[in-house]
């Protein structure tokens, strides 16, 4: 278990129960301090989200499309999972099933060990079609506050959380604009801010950085690492960028073509905290991304369509 020792530098959610709201941890905690109480072995952490022989078929009869064949994996508390797979293999579908938006045709999703029914509370999702997930009739701030409204949270707290999340993604001064007045990359950051303000236990992200330029993308990757380290939330990130999957993840799950299965799982044994310059220069990083790339190229060569 070479991974375990590399993860000492992060607090784990186990110490404050599973959910650890950002607000209470808003002072930058010393990462060394909290490391003391973290379990030595990542395997000791509870499984928060599990896919068991998950299968999703759209439609019926002749027009049926089996988007997911049989996918099983576990996400442990505080884990950062990267999922890569060929285009159209059902990554979005997988996230929808994990969040409970869509009921799987076969198999099941387990949340904290019990079968999920309906939408799982405490899950946030950043959609691939971020433009369509923001409400055009509400200003940016209202969009970020929207999930928190009606939860009984005091107004001040709510506004504070939204403001903080917006400034974290570098959009402190656009709260009074409409989302469609922003560039595509800014809109995506608003969607990310909304997820952060929600302070979820599990964050699902569907190719969140795909439309951003390299600079912003790097910044947001680091923001995500920082938030992950500070709050210990579980993050499952779908991406088509191999560097990103390795740079961010504790594990990379590579999916096959439809009907989709898990091709391989690769443990990423890179030390944390990571940073753009040094981590990406590590020999281990380069080896890992080469391995993932090989897998994907191999998968492409069996692609029935190309």
């Amino acid at each position, binding site marked *: 278990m070479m991974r375990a020792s590399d993860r000492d530098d992060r607090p784990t959610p186990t110490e404050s129960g599973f959910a650890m709201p950002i607000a209470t941890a808003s002072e930058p905690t010393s990462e060394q301090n909290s490391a003391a109480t973290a379990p030595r072995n990542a395997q000791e952490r509870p499984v928060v989200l599990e896919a068991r022989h998950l299968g999703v078929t759209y439609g019926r009869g002749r027009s049926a499309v089996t988007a997911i064949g049989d996918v099983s994996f576990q996400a442990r508390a505080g884990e950062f999972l990267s999922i890569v797979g060929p285009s159209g293999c059902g990554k979005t579908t997988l996230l*929808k099933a994990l*969040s409970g*938006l869509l009921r799987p045709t076969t198999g099941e999703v387990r949340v904290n060990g019990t079968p999920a029914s309906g*939408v799982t*509370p*405490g*899950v*946030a*999702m950043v*959609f691939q*079609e971020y433009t*369509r*997930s*923001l*409400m*055009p*009739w509400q200003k940016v701030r209202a969009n970020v506050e*929207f*999930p928190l*409204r*009606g*939860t009984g949270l005091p107004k001040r707290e709510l506004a504070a959380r939204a403001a903080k999340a917006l400034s974290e993604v570098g959009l402190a001064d656009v709260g009074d604009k*409409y989302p*469609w*007045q922003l560039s595509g990359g800014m809109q995506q950051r608003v969607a990310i801010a909304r997820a952060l303000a*929600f302070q979820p236990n599990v964050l*699902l992200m569907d190719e969140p950085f795909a439309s951003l330029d390299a600079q912003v993308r790097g910044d947001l990757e680091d923001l995500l690492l920082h938030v992950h380290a500070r709050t210990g939330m579980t993050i499952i990130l779908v991406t088509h960028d191999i560097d990103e999957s390795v740079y961010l993840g504790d594990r990379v799950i590579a999916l096959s073509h439809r009907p989709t299965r898990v091709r391989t799982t690769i443990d990423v044994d890179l030390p944390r905290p990571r940073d753009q310059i040094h981590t990406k220069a590590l020999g281990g990083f380069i080896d890992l991304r080469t391995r993932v790339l090989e897998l994907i190229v191999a998968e492409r060569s069996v692609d029935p369509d190309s």
Partner: protein
Amino acid sequence: MIKKLIGPATSLAAPVTLVAAWWILSAGSTSPYFLPLSDIVDGFQQTWTTERMEDDLLPTVRALGVGFAVAVVTGIATGVALGLSARARRDLRPITEFLRSMPVVALVPIGLVVLGPGQRMEAALVAFAATWPILVSTSDGVRAADRVMIDTARVYGVSARRRLLRVTIPAAMPQVMAGVRIAVAAAVGTVIVANMLASSSGLGYLVISAQQSFDIQETWSGLLMIGLVGSVLTCTVVLAERVLLGWHRQYRSLERTAP
């Protein structure tokens, strides 16, 4: 600044020119039917005494207002319900299609039989006629509400009620208002027809009886008033649209200018 003034100026240019042209071209008119506009305006002032307004304008406006309000409420409520349920939509389709393509004037005789002449019947017919455009476009709008937006709200645990009120209905609002706008014409037309056919007072009655007694000036006065009532109702709806859908106007103009 100048641009801001030019916008309304160009859209006002046409009506102003038209009225001016009418005024000038009709000035020397000797045709018994097309009076000079100046005579029509004179006649308008003579016809619409306070008394006359109480007798003929008020009943029509009241029936129109009541009927239209009922139509907005039932149209939106039913439209939302139908938009949400594919099954209800399918099962009620023969009925909704039949009723909505029913030429509403055909119902005037039945309205007369069932409710008798008067404002109650007029309001009911207006409500019937104006409900369908609102209902149909509301249902379309609700159906077209973005899946991703609704899914987002669901993931964040937003309750079904809030999702409906805060996501689905606002998303459908542009189409709802488009339906309301179409309904204006249906409502005004219906109230006038009902007036013409089945009343002993009201705007429609006034023009028809003026016509029958060959009082051309009074006929024109009535017509002008009908146009005025229609315009005022349209203005109200357009204003409501501006208030409710301020975002949408900018949104759309942005989309239009974008490549």
